């Protein structure tokens, strides 16, 4: 069990800062009861090992992860996402030992794809990479605090970032599921649509991509390609990974023109290549005889992205004048690759949709019933299932209110609009219960 310390509540922030526990911002004191609640949020025992960095001979336990998640400001329902992020961080392909240490100053960028992101209130639209959403900010911060406090990734110890960037405090976004036929990231990576996944990338800072006037899809993508082949980016010409975040207008232009996500990737792969001469024109010398010497290539140009599978494309962000973002990874793929892990929710855990949203569904549906003298109640009965009950006080009402089978698609539409996708619903109709007083003497 973790060491317990007694500190004066009034001096708690100063004490925790002095102990080098923080990222420079205030943290929530990790009391035993808060840590227990965090562990319960993911249904984990304190001693469960989440992974290790072999090169540092250090294992991460669920308890240490929970302590740092409390300090970051997470709510317990965020913890399954934090745990998935940490399992991804500690997968050998991510090479955390180096990613957390390098002078390149990578952040651990987390992309959360799936219905649980919406369920816990993560932001996928306006200001998706900015501040203001507790889930986005604290989940990313928790992963970073674990890296610092458990694995020593902090200045003066094992973090050798020369410059670093603000994303090292927290860099976490939710994907906004694109309309068909585009698939969300988790489905493209082979997961089920109903799952929620966390993809971790060792990332440089985001480049905002602006193209406000060009309605041509190729024109929009050429702007991305320009950001991707910027000679000042370390991995340009060496072959790394990258995350394209298509904002509202740009994704709309591409979808309406019939582009698939695979076509977008192919276009960007091709147009982000750059010649050694052009790199040199901007002062960058090609590596020769070193670990990044790519030798001859088929077109005499060098890649920004290693392979087409190394380019991730997601939709997120709010409507605006035509903004998107590109996030390059910090190192060529021989050193590090993004990793995706499914979020595991504890068995039988309660849904985290709040009462206000359920009330909003009822408020949207009930007026039509009330006009017929009936009413409606609703309660959540499972992780993503909601049960409605028609309240029909008299036989007179019973003849006016539509039967449940006809109400089903109307209810489903409101549920999807207010609660999000993936919900199942049932409608209890007293007219279907032969023993109900309403049906006394009735033949149905």
């Amino acid at each position: 069990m973790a060491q317990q310390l007694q500190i004066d509540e009034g001096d708690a922030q100063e004490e925790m800062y002095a102990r080098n526990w923080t990222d420079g911002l205030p943290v929530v004191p990790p009391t035993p009861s808060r840590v227990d609640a965090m562990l319960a949020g993911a249904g984990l025992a304190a001693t469960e090992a989440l992974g290790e960095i072999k090169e540092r001979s250090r294992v991460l336990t669920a308890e240490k992860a929970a302590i740092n998640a409390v300090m970051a400001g997470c709510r317990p329902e965020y913890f399954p996402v934090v745990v998935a992020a940490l399992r991804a961080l500690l997968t050998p392909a991510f090479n955390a030992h180096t990613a957390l240490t390098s002078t390149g100053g990578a952040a651990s960028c987390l992309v959360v794809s799936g219905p649980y992101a919406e369920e816990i209130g993560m932001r996928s639209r306006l200001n998706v990479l900015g501040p203001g959403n507790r889930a986005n900010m604290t989940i990313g911060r928790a992963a970073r605090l674990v890296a610092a406090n458990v694995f020593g990734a902090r200045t003066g110890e094992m973090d050798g970032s020369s410059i670093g960037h603000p994303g090292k405090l927290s860099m976490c976004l939710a994907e906004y599921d694109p309309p068909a036929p585009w698939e969300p990231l988790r489905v493209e990576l082979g997961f089920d649509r109903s799952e929620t996944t966390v993809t971790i990338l060792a990332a440089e800072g985001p480049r905002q991509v602006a193209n406000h006037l060009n309605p041509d899809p190729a024109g929009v993508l050429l702007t991305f390609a320009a950001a991707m082949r910027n000679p000042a980016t370390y991995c340009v010409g060496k072959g790394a990974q990258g995350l394209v975040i298509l904002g509202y207008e740009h994704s709309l232009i591409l979808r309406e023109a019939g582009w698939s996500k695979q076509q977008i990737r192919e276009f960007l792969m091709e147009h982000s290549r750059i010649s050694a001469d052009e790199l040199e024109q901007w002062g960058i010398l090609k590596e020769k005889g070193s670990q990044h010497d790519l030798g001859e290539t088929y077109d005499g140009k060098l890649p920004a992205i290693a392979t087409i599978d190394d380019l991730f494309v997601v939709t997120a962000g709010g409507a605006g004048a035509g903004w998107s973002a590109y996030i390059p990874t910090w190192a060529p793929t021989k050193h590090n690759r993004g990793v995706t892990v499914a979020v595991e929710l504890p068995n039988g855990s309660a849904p985290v949709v709040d009462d206000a949203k359920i009330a909003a569904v009822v408020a949207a549906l009930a007026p039509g019933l009330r006009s017929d003298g009936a009413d409606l109640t609703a309660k959540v009965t499972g992780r993503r299932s909601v049960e409605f009950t028609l309240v029909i006080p008299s036989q007179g009402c019973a003849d006016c209110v539509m039967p449940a089978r006809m109400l089903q698609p109307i209810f489903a539409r409101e549920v999807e609009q207010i609660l999000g996708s993936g919900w199942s619903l049932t409608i209890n109709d007293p007219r279907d219960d032969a023993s109900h007083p309403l049906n006394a003497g009735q033949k149905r």
Partner: protein
Amino acid sequence: MVVEVLSPLYEGGASEAVTMAPRRTYGKGDALHLVVIENGKPKAKQFLQFVAEEVQKRLPVATIEMFSKPGGAGRPIDADTAKMFAARAHLIISGIGD
């Protein structure tokens, strides 16, 4: 008012015990074998070769073996390679960073 908190810091539980390799013995007048492990960074090989040659001027180093890490700077050499060098080298020079 006093509040009880739990430490977020690492407190032990090494994934595997780490032990030092046995050192190769040598006697007075023996010729030494020097292994250089370079990490693939630009000019790392040239720099470490220079260091090895300077060592050779001061110690009875008969042979210098230059080894380039296959995984580049981002990954350590594997355990079998480390054991092999520990068995045949008297001296090893490596380096980290850029």
